[in-house]
Protein backbone atom coordinates (compact mmCIF):
# COMPACT_ATOMS: atom_id res chain seq x y z
CA UNK A 1 0.00 0.00 0.00
CA UNK A 2 2.96 2.32 0.56
CA UNK A 3 4.84 1.44 -2.63
CA UNK A 4 5.56 4.16 -5.16
CA UNK A 5 4.24 4.11 -8.68
CA UNK A 6 6.40 4.99 -11.70
CA UNK A 7 8.42 8.18 -11.59
CA UNK A 8 6.91 11.12 -13.48
CA UNK A 9 9.88 12.77 -15.16
CA UNK A 10 10.46 16.51 -15.56
CA UNK A 11 9.34 17.88 -18.90
CA UNK A 12 6.04 16.01 -18.91
CA UNK A 13 2.71 17.83 -18.60
CA UNK A 14 2.12 16.15 -15.23
CA UNK A 15 5.44 17.24 -13.74
CA UNK A 16 5.06 20.75 -15.11
CA UNK A 17 1.56 21.07 -13.66
CA UNK A 18 2.55 19.86 -10.19
CA UNK A 19 5.60 22.14 -10.30
CA UNK A 20 3.39 25.10 -11.15
CA UNK A 21 0.93 24.32 -8.35
CA UNK A 22 3.78 23.99 -5.84
CA UNK A 23 5.43 27.21 -7.08
CA UNK A 24 2.18 29.16 -6.89
CA UNK A 25 1.39 27.75 -3.46
CA UNK A 26 4.87 28.71 -2.25
CA UNK A 27 4.36 32.21 -3.65
CA UNK A 28 1.08 32.66 -1.78
CA UNK A 29 2.43 31.10 1.39
CA UNK A 30 5.61 33.17 1.23
CA UNK A 31 7.83 30.22 2.04
CA UNK A 32 9.58 27.57 -0.02
CA UNK A 33 8.47 24.01 -0.50
CA UNK A 34 10.77 21.20 0.62
CA UNK A 35 9.79 19.22 -2.47
CA UNK A 36 12.99 18.05 -4.16
CA UNK A 37 11.43 17.87 -7.64
CA UNK A 38 11.12 14.06 -7.66
CA UNK A 39 7.55 13.03 -8.46
CA UNK A 40 6.00 9.57 -8.49
CA UNK A 41 2.57 8.25 -9.33
CA UNK A 42 0.52 7.45 -6.23
CA UNK A 43 -1.26 4.12 -6.50
CA UNK A 44 -4.61 3.43 -4.83
CA UNK A 45 -7.28 5.66 -3.29
CA UNK A 46 -4.85 8.35 -2.06
CA UNK A 47 -4.51 11.90 -3.41
CA UNK A 48 -0.78 12.10 -2.90
CA UNK A 49 1.90 12.16 -0.23
CA UNK A 50 4.90 14.30 0.73
CA UNK A 51 7.58 11.75 1.51
CA UNK A 52 10.23 12.14 4.21
CA UNK A 53 13.04 12.39 1.63
CA UNK A 54 11.43 15.44 0.02
CA UNK A 55 9.89 13.67 -2.98
CA UNK A 56 6.15 13.66 -3.64
CA UNK A 57 3.56 11.30 -5.02
CA UNK A 58 0.40 12.31 -6.86
CA UNK A 59 -2.53 10.22 -8.01
CA UNK A 60 -2.95 9.99 -11.77
CA UNK A 61 -6.48 8.62 -11.42
CA UNK A 62 -7.78 11.07 -8.81
CA UNK A 63 -5.74 14.23 -9.42
CA UNK A 64 -3.74 14.43 -12.64
CA UNK A 65 -6.28 13.02 -15.11
CA UNK A 66 -9.26 15.01 -13.75
CA UNK A 67 -7.15 18.21 -13.71
CA UNK A 68 -5.72 17.93 -17.20
CA UNK A 69 -8.66 19.04 -19.31
CA UNK A 70 -9.02 22.31 -17.39
CA UNK A 71 -5.35 23.17 -17.82
CA UNK A 72 -5.20 22.36 -21.54
CA UNK A 73 -5.63 25.54 -23.61
CA UNK A 74 -8.58 25.62 -25.97
CA UNK A 75 -10.60 22.88 -24.31
CA UNK A 76 -14.30 23.38 -23.71
CA UNK A 77 -15.24 21.78 -20.43
CA UNK A 78 -18.42 20.06 -19.45
CA UNK A 79 -19.71 20.94 -16.01
CA UNK A 80 -18.58 17.54 -14.73
CA UNK A 81 -15.06 18.12 -16.04
CA UNK A 82 -14.99 21.56 -14.48
CA UNK A 83 -16.09 20.16 -11.14
CA UNK A 84 -13.57 17.30 -11.27
CA UNK A 85 -10.73 19.67 -12.16
CA UNK A 86 -11.63 21.95 -9.25
CA UNK A 87 -11.48 19.06 -6.76
CA UNK A 88 -8.20 17.86 -8.26
CA UNK A 89 -6.72 21.34 -7.89
CA UNK A 90 -7.76 21.52 -4.25
CA UNK A 91 -6.04 18.20 -3.54
CA UNK A 92 -2.86 19.27 -5.31
CA UNK A 93 -2.81 22.56 -3.38
CA UNK A 94 -3.38 20.74 -0.09
CA UNK A 95 -0.39 18.54 -0.85
CA UNK A 96 1.70 21.50 -1.94
CA UNK A 97 0.98 23.20 1.38
CA UNK A 98 2.01 20.08 3.31
CA UNK A 99 5.29 20.08 1.39
CA UNK A 100 6.18 23.43 2.98
CA UNK A 101 6.25 22.19 6.57
CA UNK A 102 9.52 21.41 8.22
CA UNK A 103 9.18 18.32 10.39
CA UNK A 104 11.79 18.99 13.10
CA UNK A 105 13.23 16.68 15.74
CA UNK A 106 10.68 15.26 18.16
CA UNK A 107 13.27 13.62 20.38
CA UNK A 108 14.26 16.90 22.06
CA UNK A 109 12.59 17.71 25.41
CA UNK A 110 9.32 19.57 25.08
CA UNK A 111 8.91 18.78 21.39
CA UNK A 112 5.52 17.81 20.01
CA UNK A 113 5.72 14.21 18.81
CA UNK A 114 5.25 13.86 15.05
CA UNK A 115 2.08 11.90 14.51
CA UNK A 116 0.62 12.88 17.90
CA UNK A 117 -3.03 13.89 17.81
CA UNK A 118 -2.25 17.56 18.32
CA UNK A 119 0.41 17.53 15.57
CA UNK A 120 -1.95 15.89 13.10
CA UNK A 121 -4.74 18.28 14.09
CA UNK A 122 -2.70 21.45 13.64
CA UNK A 123 -0.90 20.41 10.46
CA UNK A 124 -4.03 19.22 8.69
CA UNK A 125 -6.02 22.24 9.83
CA UNK A 126 -3.44 24.60 8.36
CA UNK A 127 -3.34 22.69 5.07
CA UNK A 128 -7.16 22.60 4.99
CA UNK A 129 -7.35 26.36 5.53
CA UNK A 130 -4.67 27.06 2.94
CA UNK A 131 -6.27 24.95 0.23
CA UNK A 132 -9.70 26.47 0.92
CA UNK A 133 -8.30 29.98 0.71
CA UNK A 134 -5.87 29.71 -2.17
CA UNK A 135 -7.01 26.90 -4.50
CA UNK A 136 -9.24 29.30 -6.43
CA UNK A 137 -6.52 31.91 -6.86
CA UNK A 138 -3.94 29.31 -7.84
CA UNK A 139 -6.29 27.86 -10.44
CA UNK A 140 -7.05 31.33 -11.82
CA UNK A 141 -3.36 32.02 -12.24
CA UNK A 142 -2.82 28.80 -14.20
CA UNK A 143 -5.82 28.51 -16.51
CA UNK A 144 -8.33 30.63 -18.38
CA UNK A 145 -11.05 28.21 -17.33
CA UNK A 146 -13.38 29.22 -14.56
CA UNK A 147 -13.38 26.36 -12.06
CA UNK A 148 -16.04 26.04 -9.41
CA UNK A 149 -13.68 26.20 -6.46
CA UNK A 150 -14.87 26.92 -2.97
CA UNK A 151 -17.62 25.35 -0.97
CA UNK A 152 -15.84 22.01 -0.60
CA UNK A 153 -16.45 20.02 2.53
CA UNK A 154 -13.50 20.63 4.83
CA UNK A 155 -11.39 17.56 5.26
CA UNK A 156 -11.13 18.11 9.00
CA UNK A 157 -14.01 20.36 10.12
CA UNK A 158 -13.35 20.30 13.87
CA UNK A 159 -9.58 20.74 13.61
CA UNK A 160 -9.92 23.53 11.06
CA UNK A 161 -12.56 25.47 12.98
CA UNK A 162 -10.66 25.25 16.26
CA UNK A 163 -7.36 26.30 14.73
CA UNK A 164 -8.90 29.18 12.83
CA UNK A 165 -10.63 30.52 15.92
CA UNK A 166 -7.49 30.20 18.03
CA UNK A 167 -5.59 32.29 15.50
CA UNK A 168 -8.07 35.09 16.16
CA UNK A 169 -8.52 34.75 19.89
CA UNK A 170 -4.85 34.39 20.79
CA UNK A 171 -4.19 37.76 19.19
CA UNK A 172 -4.12 39.74 22.43
CA UNK A 173 -2.01 37.18 24.25
CA UNK A 174 0.59 36.92 21.52
CA UNK A 175 0.43 40.42 20.08
CA UNK A 176 -0.10 38.90 16.65
CA UNK A 177 -3.01 39.03 14.25
CA UNK A 178 -4.62 35.96 12.69
CA UNK A 179 -2.34 35.88 9.64
CA UNK A 180 0.83 36.66 11.57
CA UNK A 181 0.18 33.86 14.03
CA UNK A 182 -0.63 31.55 11.14
CA UNK A 183 2.70 32.50 9.55
CA UNK A 184 4.50 31.81 12.81
CA UNK A 185 2.97 28.33 12.95
CA UNK A 186 3.64 27.55 9.30
CA UNK A 187 7.23 28.77 9.40
CA UNK A 188 8.06 26.74 12.52
CA UNK A 189 8.94 23.05 12.44
CA UNK A 190 5.97 20.88 13.38
CA UNK A 191 7.68 19.68 16.55
CA UNK A 192 8.07 23.22 17.90
CA UNK A 193 4.84 24.95 16.88
CA UNK A 194 3.11 24.86 20.26
CA UNK A 195 6.31 26.02 21.93
CA UNK A 196 6.59 28.84 19.40
CA UNK A 197 3.09 30.08 20.28
CA UNK A 198 3.89 29.85 23.99
CA UNK A 199 7.21 31.66 23.53
CA UNK A 200 5.56 34.41 21.53
CA UNK A 201 2.97 34.95 24.27
CA UNK A 202 5.59 34.87 27.05
CA UNK A 203 7.90 37.26 25.22
CA UNK A 204 5.05 39.60 24.35
CA UNK A 205 3.57 39.66 27.85
CA UNK A 206 6.46 39.23 30.24
CA UNK A 207 9.53 39.59 28.06
CA UNK A 208 12.77 40.15 29.90
CA UNK A 209 11.37 39.37 33.37
CA UNK A 210 11.63 35.61 32.74
CA UNK A 211 14.97 33.86 33.33
CA UNK A 212 15.68 31.48 30.45
CA UNK A 213 15.99 28.63 32.95
CA UNK A 214 12.25 29.02 33.72
CA UNK A 215 11.08 28.89 30.14
CA UNK A 216 10.56 25.15 29.77
CA UNK A 217 8.24 25.03 32.78
CA UNK A 218 6.27 28.07 31.66
CA UNK A 219 5.86 26.70 28.17
CA UNK A 220 4.18 23.62 29.61
CA UNK A 221 1.51 25.74 31.29
CA UNK A 222 0.65 27.24 27.91
CA UNK A 223 1.21 24.39 25.47
CA UNK A 224 -0.91 22.04 27.63
CA UNK A 225 -4.21 23.81 26.85
CA UNK A 226 -3.34 23.98 23.13
CA UNK A 227 -2.38 20.34 22.92
CA UNK A 228 -5.41 19.11 24.82
CA UNK A 229 -7.75 21.45 22.98
CA UNK A 230 -6.67 20.39 19.51
CA UNK A 231 -5.69 16.78 20.17
CA UNK A 232 -8.93 16.16 22.09
CA UNK A 233 -10.91 17.07 19.00
CA UNK A 234 -9.86 13.83 17.35
CA UNK A 235 -12.72 12.25 19.25
CA UNK A 236 -15.09 14.78 17.70
CA UNK A 237 -13.75 14.06 14.22
CA UNK A 238 -14.24 10.38 15.00
CA UNK A 239 -17.91 10.62 15.88
CA UNK A 240 -20.30 8.74 13.63
CA UNK A 241 -23.37 10.60 14.82
CA UNK A 242 -22.05 14.13 14.49
CA UNK A 243 -22.74 16.01 11.28
CA UNK A 244 -19.71 17.80 9.76
CA UNK A 245 -21.42 21.12 10.47
CA UNK A 246 -21.71 20.20 14.14
CA UNK A 247 -18.08 19.10 14.16
CA UNK A 248 -17.22 22.57 12.96
CA UNK A 249 -19.19 24.02 15.85
CA UNK A 250 -17.56 21.75 18.41
CA UNK A 251 -14.17 22.81 17.08
CA UNK A 252 -15.17 26.44 17.32
CA UNK A 253 -16.43 26.03 20.90
CA UNK A 254 -13.42 24.00 21.94
CA UNK A 255 -11.15 26.82 20.82
CA UNK A 256 -13.02 29.24 23.03
CA UNK A 257 -12.22 27.25 26.15
CA UNK A 258 -8.70 26.50 25.01
CA UNK A 259 -8.14 30.23 24.71
CA UNK A 260 -9.64 30.84 28.16
CA UNK A 261 -7.30 28.33 29.77
CA UNK A 262 -4.29 29.60 27.82
CA UNK A 263 -4.82 33.28 28.59
CA UNK A 264 -5.71 32.85 32.26
CA UNK A 265 -2.61 30.71 32.80
CA UNK A 266 -0.64 33.40 31.00
CA UNK A 267 -2.16 36.13 33.21
CA UNK A 268 -1.14 34.19 36.32
CA UNK A 269 2.39 33.81 35.00
CA UNK A 270 2.55 37.49 34.20
CA UNK A 271 1.34 38.50 37.67
CA UNK A 272 3.92 36.25 39.32
CA UNK A 273 6.85 37.87 37.50
CA UNK A 274 5.54 41.42 37.58
CA UNK A 275 4.74 41.38 41.29
CA UNK A 276 8.16 39.92 42.07
CA UNK A 277 9.84 42.56 39.94
CA UNK A 278 7.85 45.34 41.65
CA UNK A 279 8.84 44.11 45.13
CA UNK A 280 12.38 42.93 44.36
CA UNK A 281 13.66 44.97 41.44
CA UNK A 282 16.80 43.57 39.88
CA UNK A 283 16.62 40.26 41.80
CA UNK A 284 16.17 36.98 39.92
CA UNK A 285 12.60 35.74 40.44
CA UNK A 286 11.76 32.30 41.83
CA UNK A 287 10.00 29.69 39.68
CA UNK A 288 6.23 29.48 39.84
CA UNK A 289 5.07 28.44 43.32
CA UNK A 290 3.35 25.10 43.85
CA UNK A 291 0.11 26.91 44.64
CA UNK A 292 0.07 28.40 41.14
CA UNK A 293 0.79 25.12 39.44
CA UNK A 294 -2.02 23.60 41.48
CA UNK A 295 -4.26 26.35 40.18
CA UNK A 296 -3.36 25.38 36.60
CA UNK A 297 -4.51 21.83 37.32
CA UNK A 298 -7.73 23.16 38.87
CA UNK A 299 -8.31 25.15 35.73
CA UNK A 300 -7.71 22.12 33.52
CA UNK A 301 -10.39 20.29 35.46
CA UNK A 302 -12.74 23.26 35.35
CA UNK A 303 -12.50 23.34 31.56
CA UNK A 304 -13.31 19.65 31.45
CA UNK A 305 -16.28 20.33 33.68
CA UNK A 306 -17.50 22.86 31.15
CA UNK A 307 -17.25 20.23 28.44
CA UNK A 308 -18.98 17.63 30.55
CA UNK A 309 -21.85 20.03 31.16
CA UNK A 310 -22.15 20.61 27.41
CA UNK A 311 -22.42 16.87 26.91
CA UNK A 312 -19.24 16.40 24.94
CA UNK A 313 -15.93 15.73 26.66
CA UNK A 314 -13.55 16.90 23.97
CA UNK A 315 -10.53 16.85 26.20
CA UNK A 316 -8.61 14.06 27.79
CA UNK A 317 -9.06 13.50 31.51
CA UNK A 318 -6.71 15.06 33.98
CA UNK A 319 -3.79 12.78 34.75
CA UNK A 320 -4.37 10.58 37.75
CA UNK A 321 -8.15 10.85 37.73
CA UNK A 322 -9.07 9.06 34.55
CA UNK A 323 -9.22 5.43 35.67
CA UNK A 324 -12.00 5.73 38.20
CA UNK A 325 -13.97 8.03 35.94
CA UNK A 326 -13.91 5.78 32.91
CA UNK A 327 -14.41 2.58 34.83
CA UNK A 328 -17.67 4.01 36.12
CA UNK A 329 -19.03 4.73 32.65
CA UNK A 330 -20.23 1.24 31.63
CA UNK A 331 -22.42 1.02 34.72
CA UNK A 332 -24.54 3.92 33.62
CA UNK A 333 -27.73 3.67 31.65
CA UNK A 334 -27.70 5.83 28.56
CA UNK A 335 -30.97 7.38 27.46
CA UNK A 336 -30.10 7.49 23.77
CA UNK A 337 -27.61 6.51 21.10
CA UNK A 338 -25.88 9.86 21.40
CA UNK A 339 -25.06 9.33 25.07
CA UNK A 340 -23.90 5.82 24.34
CA UNK A 341 -21.61 7.00 21.62
CA UNK A 342 -20.09 9.67 23.84
CA UNK A 343 -19.37 7.08 26.52
CA UNK A 344 -17.86 4.68 23.99
CA UNK A 345 -15.66 7.40 22.52
CA UNK A 346 -14.56 8.51 25.98
CA UNK A 347 -13.47 5.01 26.81
CA UNK A 348 -11.78 4.56 23.48
CA UNK A 349 -9.89 7.82 23.75
CA UNK A 350 -8.79 7.09 27.25
CA UNK A 351 -7.70 3.57 26.44
CA UNK A 352 -5.53 4.91 23.64
CA UNK A 353 -4.28 8.24 24.86
CA UNK A 354 -4.34 8.38 28.65
CA UNK A 355 -1.01 9.59 30.00
CA UNK A 356 -0.21 6.17 31.38
CA UNK A 357 -0.61 4.68 27.90
CA UNK A 358 1.73 7.06 26.15
CA UNK A 359 5.45 6.63 25.78
CA UNK A 360 6.33 9.57 23.60
CA UNK A 361 8.35 12.64 24.38
CA UNK A 362 5.31 14.49 25.65
CA UNK A 363 5.28 12.17 28.64
CA UNK A 364 7.91 12.15 31.32
CA UNK A 365 9.39 9.09 32.92
CA UNK A 366 6.71 9.06 35.58
CA UNK A 367 4.05 8.56 32.93
CA UNK A 368 2.70 12.07 33.21
CA UNK A 369 2.27 14.34 30.20
CA UNK A 370 4.92 17.03 30.25
CA UNK A 371 2.40 19.71 31.05
CA UNK A 372 1.61 17.99 34.34
CA UNK A 373 4.03 17.72 37.22
CA UNK A 374 3.71 16.33 40.69
CA UNK A 375 3.43 19.16 43.10
CA UNK A 376 3.56 19.28 46.85
CA UNK A 377 -0.03 19.81 47.81
CA UNK A 378 -2.61 17.07 48.13
CA UNK A 379 -5.30 16.69 45.47
CA UNK A 380 -8.75 17.82 46.38
CA UNK A 381 -10.91 14.70 46.56
CA UNK A 382 -14.08 16.27 45.27
CA UNK A 383 -12.87 17.78 42.02
CA UNK A 384 -13.08 16.57 38.48
CA UNK A 385 -15.49 15.55 35.81
CA UNK A 386 -18.45 13.81 37.33
Amino acid at each position, binding site marked *: *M*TELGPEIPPGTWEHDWVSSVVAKAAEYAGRPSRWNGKLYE*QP*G*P*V*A*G*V*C*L*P*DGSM*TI*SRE*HVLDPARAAYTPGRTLTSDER*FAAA*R*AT*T*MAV*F*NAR*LSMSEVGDDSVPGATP*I*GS*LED*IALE*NARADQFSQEYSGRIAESMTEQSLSLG*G*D*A*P*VFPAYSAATDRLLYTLGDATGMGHDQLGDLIDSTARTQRFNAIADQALDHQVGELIPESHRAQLREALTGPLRRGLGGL*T*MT*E*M*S*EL*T*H*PGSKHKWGWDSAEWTEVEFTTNLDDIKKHYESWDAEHPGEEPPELPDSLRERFLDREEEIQQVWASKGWPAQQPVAGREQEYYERLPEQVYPNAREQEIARLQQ*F*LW*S*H*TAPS*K*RNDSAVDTGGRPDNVRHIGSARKPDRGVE
Partner: protein
Amino acid sequence: MDAYREAQRLYAEAMLSHASGRELIAELERALQRIGELLPQAAPDQRSAVLLMNSSIAERLAGLAEESR
Protein backbone atom coordinates in the same frame (compact mmCIF):
# COMPACT_ATOMS: atom_id res chain seq x y z
CA MET B 1 -24.20 6.06 7.69
CA ASP B 2 -22.87 8.32 4.96
CA ALA B 3 -19.52 7.44 3.47
CA TYR B 4 -17.81 10.72 4.39
CA ARG B 5 -18.66 10.37 8.06
CA GLU B 6 -17.65 6.75 8.09
CA ALA B 7 -14.34 7.65 6.43
CA GLN B 8 -13.74 10.33 9.06
CA ARG B 9 -14.46 7.86 11.80
CA LEU B 10 -12.09 5.29 10.31
CA TYR B 11 -9.44 7.97 9.86
CA ALA B 12 -9.63 9.14 13.45
CA GLU B 13 -9.75 5.58 14.76
CA ALA B 14 -6.57 4.76 12.85
CA MET B 15 -4.83 7.89 14.02
CA LEU B 16 -5.80 7.22 17.63
CA SER B 17 -4.41 3.72 17.49
CA HIS B 18 -1.88 2.96 20.16
CA ALA B 19 -0.50 -0.03 18.32
CA SER B 20 3.13 0.05 17.31
CA GLY B 21 5.48 -1.51 14.78
CA ARG B 22 3.99 -3.96 12.32
CA GLU B 23 0.64 -4.00 14.10
CA LEU B 24 0.30 -0.24 13.63
CA ILE B 25 1.32 -0.46 9.99
CA ALA B 26 -1.26 -3.19 9.43
CA GLU B 27 -3.96 -1.11 11.15
CA LEU B 28 -3.17 1.97 9.10
CA GLU B 29 -3.12 -0.05 5.88
CA ARG B 30 -6.49 -1.57 6.76
CA ALA B 31 -7.97 1.88 7.41
CA LEU B 32 -6.54 3.19 4.15
CA GLN B 33 -8.07 0.27 2.29
CA ARG B 34 -11.48 0.62 3.93
CA ILE B 35 -11.60 4.37 3.38
CA GLY B 36 -10.70 3.74 -0.26
CA GLU B 37 -13.60 1.31 -0.55
CA LEU B 38 -15.93 4.04 0.69
CA LEU B 39 -14.77 6.50 -1.95
CA PRO B 40 -17.31 5.56 -4.67
CA GLN B 41 -20.14 5.95 -2.16
CA ALA B 42 -19.07 9.41 -1.03
CA ALA B 43 -20.88 12.44 -2.44
CA PRO B 44 -18.86 13.99 -5.31
CA ASP B 45 -18.05 17.14 -3.32
CA GLN B 46 -16.72 15.03 -0.45
CA ARG B 47 -14.44 12.71 -2.42
CA SER B 48 -11.43 14.99 -2.30
CA ALA B 49 -11.77 15.13 1.50
CA VAL B 50 -11.86 11.33 1.64
CA LEU B 51 -8.79 11.03 -0.59
CA LEU B 52 -6.90 13.55 1.55
CA MET B 53 -7.71 11.62 4.71
CA ASN B 54 -6.06 8.67 3.03
CA SER B 55 -3.12 10.89 2.08
CA SER B 56 -2.67 11.68 5.76
CA ILE B 57 -2.65 7.97 6.62
CA ALA B 58 -0.26 7.25 3.75
CA GLU B 59 2.08 9.99 4.98
CA ARG B 60 2.11 8.40 8.40
CA LEU B 61 2.87 5.02 6.83
CA ALA B 62 5.73 6.57 4.86
CA GLY B 63 7.11 8.06 8.08
CA LEU B 64 6.94 4.69 9.83
CA ALA B 65 8.72 3.03 6.92
CA GLU B 66 11.46 5.67 7.13
CA GLU B 67 11.84 5.12 10.90
CA SER B 68 12.22 1.38 10.49
CA ARG B 69 15.16 1.78 8.09
